[in-house]
């Protein structure tokens, strides 16, 4: 495997649009050519080498056998791994918004936290985050009718609001808690939440959401029965009835109260 190491040369005060950091784009290039790739820092177009130290195995190589190792604070570096179709990106630290945007295959591993829009509209491949993730994990961008359609996202920590918004396929697993409206307007796919969730599955047409902790369930969900999944008892609901939805919602514990 060809390994390419990227380290920030300084602290970024404005976001860097780094959609060019992908195995697909790097693979055919030498290290020197990678250094001269251009990205936007705010409204300035700059060479990658002006922002980052780039080292590692000399190319070219095959994209499938390309690993990009990001080391340091990438929390203001956006769109890492956008539309990647193979290879591997590992981040030792935090990664910024829109990581894995529209990726089709390959693998992204984040040691730290991920920003908003992680894996938005992804088609395939896998993303694993050891820390927390922001809002709109696996969602569709503004106006889209489909977010993530395939692949897998695993978050060991917590995730923010609107997890899996407009999910049309694939699987998202969060071991911790999530914020408001996970699985809003879903049309497929599977969401598993280890901790608590607030108002899951609003406007869901189809798909499944499983909440291992406590869930505040919308009044437009219909209770069906209590079922056992892998030795644990869940209350099963169908909804969202306001959308004549056929989504399935499983909650280990239901928070009482209105709305």
């Amino acid at each position: 495997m060809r390994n390419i190491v990227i380290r920030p040369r300084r602290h970024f005060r404005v976001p860097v649009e780094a959609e060019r950091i992908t195995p697909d784009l790097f693979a055919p290039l030498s290290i020197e050519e990678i250094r001269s790739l251009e990205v936007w820092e705010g409204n300035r177009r700059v060479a990658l080498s002006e922002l980052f130290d780039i080292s590692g195995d000399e190319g070219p190589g095959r994209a499938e056998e390309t690993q990009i190792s990001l080391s340091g604070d990438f929390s203001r570096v956006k769109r890492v791994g956008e539309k990647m179709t193979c290879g591997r990106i590992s981040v030792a630290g935090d990664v910024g918004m829109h990581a894995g945007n529209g990726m089709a295959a390959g693998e992204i591993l984040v040691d730290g936290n991920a920003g908003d829009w992680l894996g938005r509209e992804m088609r395939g491949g896998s993303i694993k985050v050891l820390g927390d993730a922001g809002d709109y994990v696996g969602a569709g961008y503004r106006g889209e009718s489909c977010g993530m359609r395939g692949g897998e996202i695993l978050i060991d920590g917590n995730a923010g609001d609107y997890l899996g918004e407009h999910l049309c396929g694939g699987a998202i697993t969060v071991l911790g808690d999530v914020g408001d409206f996970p699985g809003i307007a879903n049309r497929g796919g599977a969401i598993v939440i280890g901790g608590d969730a607030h108002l899951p599955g609003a406007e869901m047409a189809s798909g499944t959401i499983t909440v291992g902790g406590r869930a505040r369930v919308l009044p437009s969900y219909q209770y069906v029965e209590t079922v056992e999944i892998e030795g644990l008892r869940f209350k099963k609901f169908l909804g969202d009835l306001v959308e004549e939805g056929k989504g399935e919602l499983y909650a280990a514990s239901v928070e009482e109260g209105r709305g």
Partner: protein
Amino acid sequence: MIIEGGIVYDPINGVLGEEMDLSIEDGRVVEKAGGSEVIDARGMLVMPGGVDAHAHIAGGKVNTGRIMRPEDGRRGTEPRTKLLRPSTGYTVPNCYAIGYRYARLGYTTAFEAATPILEARHTHEELEEIPIIDKGALTLFGNNWEVLECVRDGDLGKLAAFVAWGLLASRGYGVKVVNPGGGEAWGFGGNVKGIDDPVPSFDVTPREIIRYLMRANEALRLPHSVHLHTNNLGKPGNYETTLETLRAVEDIAASRNRQVLHVTHMQFSAYGGTGWRDFESKAPEIAGYFNRHDQFTMDMGQLIFGSATTMTADAPLEYGNARLLKAKWSNHDIELEESSGVVPIVYGRKNPINAIQWAIGLELALLTEDSWQMIMTTDHPNGGPFVNYPEVVALLMSRRKREEELATLHDLASKRTSLPSIEREMDWNEVAIVTRAGPARILGLPEKGHLGVGADGDVSIYEINPEKVDPSRDHEVVKAALARAKYTIKAGEVVVRDGEVVAVPQGSTYWVDASVPEADAARVRADLVEKFAKYYSIQMSNYMVQDAYVTRPRVVRAGVI
């Protein structure tokens, strides 16, 4: 400027593929120009600049489409350059992109197809921002309370005076009628089901509204005829309503040398069947009727597979679309004038309804024998975005292309339409008619759509040799050449070279100033004072489009005195 040696198609002047030079001076075609600018067009196709007589390119509902569809804005983004402002969007492009993209296709004029008077300021604000092309806007009258009252009272004089006032108030060019009566009924959650179904509260029928507006239009001798979007548009079986409508106005005569009625995006009004299950084409019936009645014209409203945004003053239709598609829906009430709606849609090749619709548009264009009765449109962005015009032209010119496409569609496109049996392939002269000469004549623009002395110096030059390329076989070559004009010349200035925009002049905006007898105008003013006092949400003084909104007007005079 001299354009040298091109192979010219100029149907209005009877020029059918002759190699000739053209001279342009001070923005107009002249006998012989001075100056040293020479464009070498040898071996290339030369036509008058394209004219789009029906597209939704400016105003409230277009902008609603943009607001509703940020995902569309992301498609088709092109960054700013030293010369150009940034472009966004595919079905609902921003204003700049509309101008640039028309120019790249060799189009130099485009008319916005539906503006309520109340929102005309917005329309003109956007038209002002569309670069390069000349523009105009048709004004909606078919559900306006003042119109309905004049029709109820049988007061043709007052109706004509109101139409003249409405064109002035909106700086509009012509009379657009959309689902007459239906938009008003929608205010109460209803619709009209046919041309004899009365409009709630007004005791008038669509038949009467259409007839009266056509008579007023002809009394005013407007350059364009009434421009009609039929009742029951988009519904299976609606071809009967369409034919009934046309038969209901056969006795009305045109006041000028043009059609007496233009029926727009006919594809959506040529449907058979009792529902979606037995949905089928009735294009042969419609085209057959047009072949026997040369006083009527139509445009295709061709469907393009992929993403589109439907937008129309036919609000009940959009409600139906939104329910059927479970799609985003915007619904809008335009006070005393209209209602409207916007719904995004994706047309699929394997969707039997969409596949049949696609075939119907082509059947209509190919079965209508006289090309002067037909305009090539996609009802942008209802049937699809206008950037697909080269695709439509290639389909009209090549039976082979049609067969290739049909093979990729749901098989009902072949079984429920007559398209597979149609052999006709348009030639370059017919293409020049349906994209330029025809729409200019139908709109009533004597200086557009041709290259005779005195015409506007709007010329498109394409890198394709009509004497060497066989469009039937090499339809890909045709499509590629038309998509990127070698040169587009607007008022004597090169605005596109090698498919790229190289200059961004500002075009002008047409509107019609029609005079009427003062007595009739005074009666209209009295009515309006009451309507604004009682019903409108704004004052009349804030309603009229002022001159400041139309900085480069091109005023066409009409009227009864």
